[in-house]
């Protein structure tokens, strides 16, 4: 494998790392972690189809190379980013904006934080040498090459801390904006810690400034949900049509905690979202739901790893893919129920709707059960729109595209319905609507 890893690309990136590493925030232990992470990445290089987890998303073929780091945003870039943020603004949220991989305080709402809420840019935390926080942000699985690379290169992000007993009514909205003035990569890493008995809603959006050129977003999110805490999470990928988005989230739940996450991918040329959820405390529940709406030559991969490590936890996955033209949707869902995790209740259902003969959807559900007293199940279907339904609707006066749009809305509706917040459900519906309208 070493031989394969030493491609031109790998070497070039190694040079990049050697040049930038001294300028990356975080000294001492963090610098060591970065170096180790980069070495871990270099050993494998960009993942390819001969690695089982990456079988359907061969980054060596799709991405070919990791672009150099984006320069720090200047005033012109920030103003273009501000316009993009405004276009997709969500009412009533506290906005935290990252532009080209750098926290943008002027575009963010940092004022008057509610009691118990602390928000700091990652760079500031690292520069301040806050050891515990930094280590938690960077303690991730470097056996995954893209997570390792993200850890090695991350320039900024947000670190959010929610003190025990704090229920935040205002959702937090992390907006990733790429200016795309030149082909470049952005590496961000964020940390969200929910203390005991807390509750918060986090929205993440991925956007591009108008006219953005090819860019690569590499994002990592680390989440720790304390006992009896609840996180509602909505993730919207609306990247530019020739962009790459390689992101991961690692979520750990304490006891009697709740995690509800919904992801919608409609943008980007190639995207991969790797979500690892670990139930580490008993009595927790997890709902991970998602929708891909893709066309053209888009490639969207959601890879989920649900780890039931302790007894009495429940997890539900509802995933829907709508794939048109020559697009390719991938859903890999692996559920592991460890030997101690008795009374686990885990279910996963993934369905794909193919709108063209050239569309492709790969569904790979996997269950690994090592406990004997559990309820687990999964299902996967792939099909086209039902012709008899389409005819009925057309016979009532709906043009074909409109009839299809109603059926597609119904198809993704079951996943979108799982969003707890009415306002955010509307945001997701509006995003899906935009996709359908662009299609008509």
């Amino acid at each position, binding site marked *: 494998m070493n031989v394969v890893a030493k491609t031109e690309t790998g070497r070039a990136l190694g040079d990049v790392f050697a040049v930038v590493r001294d300028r990356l925030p975080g000294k001492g232990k963090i610098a060591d972690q970065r170096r180790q992470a980069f070495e871990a990445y270099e050993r494998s290089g960009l993942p390819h189809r001969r690695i089982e987890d990456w079988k359907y998303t061969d980054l060596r073929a799709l991405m070919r190379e990791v672009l150099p780091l984006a320069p720090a945003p200047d005033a012109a870039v920030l103003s273009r980013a501000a316009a993009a943020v405004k276009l997709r603004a969500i009412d009533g949220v506290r906005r935290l904006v990252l532009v080209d991989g750098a926290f943008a305080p002027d575009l963010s709402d940092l004022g008057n934080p509610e009691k118990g809420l602390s928000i700091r840019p990652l760079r500031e935390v690292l520069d301040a040498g806050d050891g515990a926080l930094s280590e938690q942000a960077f303690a991730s699985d470097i056996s995954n090459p893209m997570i390792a690379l993200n850890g090695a290169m991350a320039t900024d992000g947000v670190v959010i801390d929610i003190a025990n007993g704090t229920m935040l009514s205002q959702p937090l909205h992390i907006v990733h904006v790429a200016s795309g003035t030149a082909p470049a990569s952005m590496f961000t890493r964020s940390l969200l810690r929910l203390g005991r008995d807390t509750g918060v809603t986090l929205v993440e959006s991925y956007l591009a400034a108008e006219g953005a050129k090819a860019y690569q977003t590499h994002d990592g999110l680390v989440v720790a949900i304390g006992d009896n805490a609840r996180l509602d999470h909505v993730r919207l990928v609306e990247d530019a049509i020739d962009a790459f988005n390689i992101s991961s989230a690692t979520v750990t739940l304490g006891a009697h905690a709740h995690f509800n996450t919904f992801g919608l991918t409609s943008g980007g040329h190639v995207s991969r979202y790797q979500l690892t959820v670990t139930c580490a405390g008993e009595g927790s529940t997890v709902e991970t739901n998602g929708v891909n709406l893709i066309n053209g030559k888009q490639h969207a991969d959601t890879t989920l790893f649900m780890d039931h490590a302790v007894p009495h936890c429940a997890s539900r996955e509802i995933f829907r893919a709508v794939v048109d033209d020559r697009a390719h949707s991938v859903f890999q869902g692996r559920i592991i129920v460890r030997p101690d995790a008795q009374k686990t209740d885990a279910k996963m259902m993934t369905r794909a709707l193919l709108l063209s003969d050239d569309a492709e959807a790969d569904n790979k559900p996997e269950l690994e059960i090592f406990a004997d007293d559990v309820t687990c199940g999964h299902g996967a279907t792939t099909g086209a729109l039902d012709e008899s339904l389409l*005819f*009925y609707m057309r016979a009532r*006066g709906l043009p074909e595209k*409109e009839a299809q749009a*109603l059926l597609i*809305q119904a198809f993704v509706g079951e996943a979108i319905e799982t969003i707890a917040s009415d306002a955010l459900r509307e945001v997701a519906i509006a995003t899906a609507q935009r996709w359908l309208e662009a299609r008509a």
Partner: protein
Amino acid sequence: MSLLEVKDLQVRVEEREILHGLSLTVNPGQVHAIMGPNGSGKSTLSHVIAGKPGYEVTGGQILFRGEDLLEMEPNERAAKGVFLAFQYPVEIPGVTTWNFLHAALNAQRKARGEDEISSPAFLKKVREVAKSLNIPQDMLKRGVNVGFSGGEKKRNEILQMALFEPAVCILDEMDSGLDIDALRIAADGVNALRSPERAMVVITHYQRLLNYIVPDVVHVMSKGRVVKSGGKELALELEESGYAQFEDAA
């Protein structure tokens, strides 16, 4: 000008010819009944008029107010005023009846160059119609036909007919799967829609339905053709003697 004119229609499904030169002329205000045994081509005729894919018209034509219907998409036909009440209305989970009817009505209006109807105005209209057909409001909030009984599905078809106000209504085996009470409610709904401008084509296997929806003209179909036409008494005659005599005639 007649409303609907089917001339020497020949239709194939895959390699088999189902209709071998069928003709039918329907004028405004008339109710035509088409009767015939299973496999005589009754449902094929209704599908071809509505534009269902999968049928190949190899000869003849269908004119609606003199326009060539076969050149139009199913949705264009609907907007022009052709309505097919399905023998087996489909279930559409996840699309509420409200939403579906509103979208369909507006699509038809848009195609005719009329203004779209607003949600409040639509709600008022659909509520009135639903009430007259004894359709509970909560049915309208559910997915189209999802969990509806046979009778409810047929009433939903008639609701749509009342809402869209078509010029020609084709009722395909409206009586199938209905008990006598459900049949009466459905027939009352249809009768309320009879008017001097509107025509109906009632396709049925049994004479029973025609006790409730009394036709002006009765056609007997056999083996892909109309083999006999007459007044309403023809239906009664059929009830007595059966279809066997016509199978020979064809």
